[in-house]
């Protein structure tokens, strides 16, 4: 029988120690901290690059995309309907005294409609979706990462970016404008209820007054930015889930970070969109 081969561990350990630490620990810590933010930005840029590459590749996962549209769109609808209705109702009730001071109560439907279409509908819907969809994506992908499901996908020669990320980001991008339309529509209904608390306006008259104040230029830029909001929610949620660390704690952190970062980015994108719209129109 062959003799069992045992390697001289002490010798190799000494060589390794001599080679290994070149910089002091303090220097490395400072460098790591300074690089942390830039590293995150760089990683996210690479993630988005990979996402674009896979979006336009062959073998699009259409079935999973439809499933995600259902999960994101249909399952968020009740929340958006309730929020939209209350949004319209509260906005009307709060605005009424100020409008009454100037004798402009009849302009209330128009004012509420412009506010809802241009700003409140898109931003509130996007922030709610950042909480619901973004955190869901962060937690789901984070837990898939922790339980090695993403690795299992990769090993079985399935591209996890294509299957998990592209489908979710596209579904969020396409579903958010639709959810915003629902929020706006139910916002009008809420506003009509609000108007009728201290008045008597038929729904047809209310809609006529509301739509009379809205132009295509109110509607179009708002619609465009909702696509961007959807993309932000999808990308940030997936990125945070995909880059979750090890252990269950990191799943919670990923979900939390997805909500915080996407909410912040939504507000920044909104500000930029408003500036651009203001310059162009």
């Amino acid at each position, binding site marked *: *029988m*062959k*003799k*069992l*081969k*045992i*390697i001289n*561990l002490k010798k*190799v*350990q000494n060589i*390794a120690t001599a080679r*290994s*630490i070149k910089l002091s*620990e303090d220097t*490395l810590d400072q460098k790591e901290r300074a690089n942390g933010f830039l590293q995150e930005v760089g990683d996210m840029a690479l993630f988005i690059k990979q996402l674009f590459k896979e979006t336009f590749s062959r*073998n699009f996962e259409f079935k999973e995309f439809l499933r995600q549209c259902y999960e994101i769109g249909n399952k968020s609808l009740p929340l958006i309907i309730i929020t939209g209705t209350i949004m319209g109702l509260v906005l009307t009730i709060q605005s009424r005294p100020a409008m009454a001071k100037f004798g402009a109560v009849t302009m209330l439907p128009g004012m509420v409609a412009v506010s809802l279409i241009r700003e409140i509908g898109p931003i509130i819907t996007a922030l709610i979706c950042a909480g619901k969809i973004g955190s869901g994506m962060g937690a789901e992908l984070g*837990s*898939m990462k922790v*339980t*090695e*499901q993403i*690795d*299992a*996908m*990769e*090993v*079985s*020669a*399935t*591209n996890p970016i294509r299957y998990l990320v592209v489908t979710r980001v596209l579904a969020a991008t396409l579903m958010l404008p639709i959810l915003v339309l629902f929020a706006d529509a139910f916002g009008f209904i809420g506003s009509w209820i609000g108007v009728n608390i201290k008045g008597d306006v038929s729904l047809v008259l209310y809609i006529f007054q509301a739509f009379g104040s809205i132009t295509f230029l109110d509607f179009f830029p708002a619609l465009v930015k909702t696509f961007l909001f959807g993309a932000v929610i999808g990308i940030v949620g997936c990125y945070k889930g995909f880059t979750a660390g090890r252990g269950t704690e990191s799943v919670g952190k990923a979900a939390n970070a997805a909500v915080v970062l996407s909410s912040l980015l939504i507000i920044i994108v909104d500000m930029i969109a408003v500036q651009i719209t203001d310059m162009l129109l």
Partner: protein
Amino acid sequence: MKNTQEGSLENISEDKETAETLVEIKNLKKSFGRLEVLKDISLKLRNGENLVVLGKSGSGKSVLIKCIVRLLNPDGGTINLLGENVGSIKGKKLSEVRKKIGFLFQSGALYDSMTVKQNLEFPLRRIKRDLNEQEIDEKVKEVLDNVGLPNALKSMPSELSGGMRKRISLARSIILDPVIMLYDEPTTGLDPVTSDEISELINSVQKKYKTSSIIITHDIACVRITADRIIMLHKGYVYAEGTLAEFEKSDDPLIMSFFK
């Protein structure tokens, strides 16, 4: 069992020396930040053998197996997998190599949102696109029979016990008829009886599908059932290499601490 027949063990060892090498790792290094996990690993997996990689927790066993399929990128050294240098290939070529590898994860890694059937169909539908529904159903049934769970088709992963999850995960790994099987701690978290059943299943998969396997474990019962050859990792290096009989006869304190 293999460990009770020393004569046949020697024969196995000699046969494998001349067998084709499927995996060849040279001077592999991998660090996480300042933590050097793999410092200098070299090993070979020969055609038809079960190579057990043994070592304490934190010795880099799982990192090693993940480097082999490029789930982790090595910092240095080369990994030759089925004639391809894994470090230098990417995209389609990497996918082609991965299709020939089955990987049983420590946690099973079954897709939570899918039934057992959908879990098993997942790799088939994406890789063997020419199969029709009937062929897919037949293949799913065949692998489920082979792992001893023919009636689990409609179950969700959350409804399965630890042992059943490992079996289903194994079924998913073999559904594409892999050339090499990589097992990451296949018996961790299981009771001794189920552990032995999984170890026997590893042997039966090897015979039925003619696979060669790398089995990462620290479970000596699993080693005794499955190992043709053993490599022991310690502090990022290959500490010892030999057959089960050689390991059991060793008077090295570290090896004895595993085999006592």
